[in-house]
């Protein structure tokens, strides 16, 4: 409680205004009224909500210029992933053909599921480790590893061993949050404007590292299907036209190189697996510059033929590669 000060009591009557007082007050009010009217006119719009225009970006083409000096596909059998990968890259012309000094390289393994490496639902961590090492040997500036997982991403990257592999190879793991997607013009038949993991717009080279898996609807999850893991939004709707979607994605993202992990193959119950009974060992890596031929070749591991998989011929019709892998220059070796 404050006691009122008798000296500061409000007067009971007003004092008359001087002309100056009146003119000043009038001018101030007129100025305010003008500003108010002007801002009203300036803020007037025909749309009910004012939106900032969203910039729509396009993915760049990460491919190398074509050459006939090296085969398009290198198949390597062996026990240890790193020497196998070195051999495969060597067959295709060596890592310096793909990665130049100062390149920012993005590796896109399949890290869709909260599974262990033995369960073959994700790309093997050994392949990620070896590939990241190779990139660093070619003096890449940074090597990123990313995927848009279906299970909890922290668990997926940790339990697949890919987080540890990336750490070991001094590569950066990037788990995109909700603000890490850019609105992208995919230019597809079905996929027009979709949100894409922003890293794909910020790197110089992209290396696809898929794994061979069974998938009930498309028949298989291979190299081209692996691009499902770059988009955000309601990607579960793509299943309604899965073959066209796969081809649209493969046409939008043209990687520098693809190395398929066929050391362990998830033969049934894909793409999640979960049981070791679903997994078979083939101890093979396939590096390729032609994703269609690569996918077509890898069907052999799943006991499928290309005529059962519509997206392959659709991709060929779009000029993405050859379904008849027998017609593609290739090398096969054992390490």
């Amino acid at each position, binding site marked *: 409680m404050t006691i009122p000060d008798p000296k500061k009591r409000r007067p009971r009557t007003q004092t008359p205004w001087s002309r100056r007082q009146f003119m000043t007050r009038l001018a101030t009010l007129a100025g305010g009224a003008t500003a108010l009217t002007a801002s009203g006119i300036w803020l007037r719009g025909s749309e009910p909500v004012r939106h900032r225009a969203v910039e729509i970006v396009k993915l760049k083409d990460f491919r190398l210029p074509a050459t006939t000096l090296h085969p398009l596909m290198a198949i390597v059998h062996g026990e240890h992933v790193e020497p196998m990968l070195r051999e495969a890259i060597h067959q295709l012309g060596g890592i310096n053909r793909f990665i130049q000094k100062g390149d920012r390289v993005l590796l896109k393994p399949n890290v869709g599921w*909260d599974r262990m490496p033995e369960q073959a639902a994700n790309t093997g961590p050994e392949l990620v480790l070896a590939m990241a090492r190779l990139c660093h040997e070619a003096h890449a500036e940074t090597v990123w590893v990313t995927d848009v997982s*279906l*299970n*909890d*991403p*922290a*668990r997926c990257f*940790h*339990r697949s061993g890919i987080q540890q592999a990336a750490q070991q190879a001094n590569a950066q793991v990037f*788990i995109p*949050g*909700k*603000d890490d997607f850019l609105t992208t013009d995919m230019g597809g038949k079905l996929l027009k404007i979709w949100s894409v993991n922003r890293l794909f717009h910020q790197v110089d080279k992209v290396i696809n590292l898929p794994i061979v898996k069974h*998938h*009930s*609807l498309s028949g298989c999850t291979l190299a081209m299907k692996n691009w499902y893991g770059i988009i955000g939004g*309601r990607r*579960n*709707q793509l*299943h*309604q*036209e*899965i073959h066209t979607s796969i081809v649209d994605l493969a046409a939008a993202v043209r990687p520098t190189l693809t190395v398929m992990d066929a050391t362990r193959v998830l033969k049934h*119950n894909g*793409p*999640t*697996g*979960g*049981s070791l*009974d*679903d997994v078979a060992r083939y101890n093979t890596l396939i590096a390729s510059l032609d994703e269609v031929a690569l996918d077509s070749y890898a069907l052999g591991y799943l006991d499928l033929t290309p005529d059962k998989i519509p997206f392959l011929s659709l991709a060929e019709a779009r000029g993405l590669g050859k379904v008849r892998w027998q017609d593609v220059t290739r090398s096969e070796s054992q390490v």
Partner: protein
Amino acid sequence: MKISLPRLRTIRRIYATFFFGLFLFLLLIADFSHMKGYDIPLFLEIDPLVAVSGLLTSQTLYKGMLLSLLVLVPTLFFGRFFCSWVCPLGIMHQLFGLRVFAHRPSLSLNANSYRPWFRVKYYLLAGFLVVALTGGMQIGLLDPIALVFRSAAVSLLPALDNPGWTIYPHTPIFYGGMSITLFLLLILAANRFMPRIWCRVLCPLGAFLGVASRWSPFGIQRDVDRCNGCNKCLHHCQGACDPHAQWRRSECHLCMNCIEDCPEAALHYGLPATRSSVHLPLDINRRRLLETCIGSLALLPLMRHSASAVTLDLAPVIRPPGSLAEEDFAKRCIKCSACMRVCPTNALQPTLLEAGWEQLWTPVLIPRIGYCEHHCVLCGLVCPTGAIRALSVDEKLGRPPFDSPIRLGTAFFDRGRYLPWAMDVPCIVCEEVCPTSPKAIWYQTVTVTTREHATLSLKQPYLKPDLCIGCGICEHKCPVGGEAAIRVSSIGESRSATNRMLLKS
């Protein structure tokens, strides 16, 4: 050289900073990547009121609850130190009462002296304990630790999350989260009218510790000869425990401010000296207490004769994996939201009234928001009361030596909404994401004739109920918006003996 010991108020401030920091730390690291071996629910475990309520409802002092003795035993000797030294809500109130809504020194007598209505907290405590004795765990509604943990987990932390400094990859959302924090904000804002009105009038834990401290030999002692009655000790008094007159030990938080504020050095903490003033005993009215206890006896029968998850198998009440059977669950869950804080998919949500009044703010899985991650057992690991048992991954998945997985419920197809059944559109996303091996969802390839007389090959899904674990990922990932085309009900849940559908399972 004279060594000056730190003042008691300084020591209290160091403790308060440490415990508040620890509370925030444990809250912030509560996720799969960071929690490691830390005891996330530590503050809920050292809460003696939660321990005693659990003991009354289920006759056992569950695991970490033994830690509550670390608070209770020293309180018997030293008084109600918890409230200003350890309790995160008490420390928040202290900041609000003294710093945010500071009052003029001249109003101290008005703001910080004892009022008879401070007794309310003892009657509230008695009511909660009687409900607990009859088998209802309702203490979580007003227990300060549960209250502040819940508010922080489901509302404050998500609200503070921003793109620049982020705690989550995807900021979670919670059902009615805002209403939970509004209560916290309300009691903090009430400091505007009286400092620590919550601690003085409502807090049942404060009342409990007040009762426990009534025999403590140590206390604030006022030397009647030195005291000149200036009332300066009241300026920063937290408990409104009348250090200027006859001290009320059950109200005092041992903030030690009065000792520092006394210009005559008339106050000290310890055993009484020869000229120390007398103390006042616990101020409760025996008749009111008896009335409260008898009245509270009616509460549980009222709850148990309403349709709730305890009295009825409710389809949408899908409890976290490892939850006890509903009747036991109701005896254990203190609505602290620790499980919701750690759930990686944001699946666990506080109920409003869908499980009944008794089960307000208990965790349920809402598959449209998230699903139960197949290999994740975090909710059971952080549950302080064992309402959700700590499971091993093997037990959850039913790997040997366990013979069947923990089921949360069963998924059902809605053929009227399911794309391949109702609209001749391919989909089976649910089959793709089904985590069991072999998958609970399977399909048959059929050829259908469309409206335009074209033939179309479609994969139409089916569910094998004995393989379904009710994790809800199918419903979560279903592209059919609004109500999904496959939905999980609690029927078939492992924890219930009655909520069953199949004879063989």
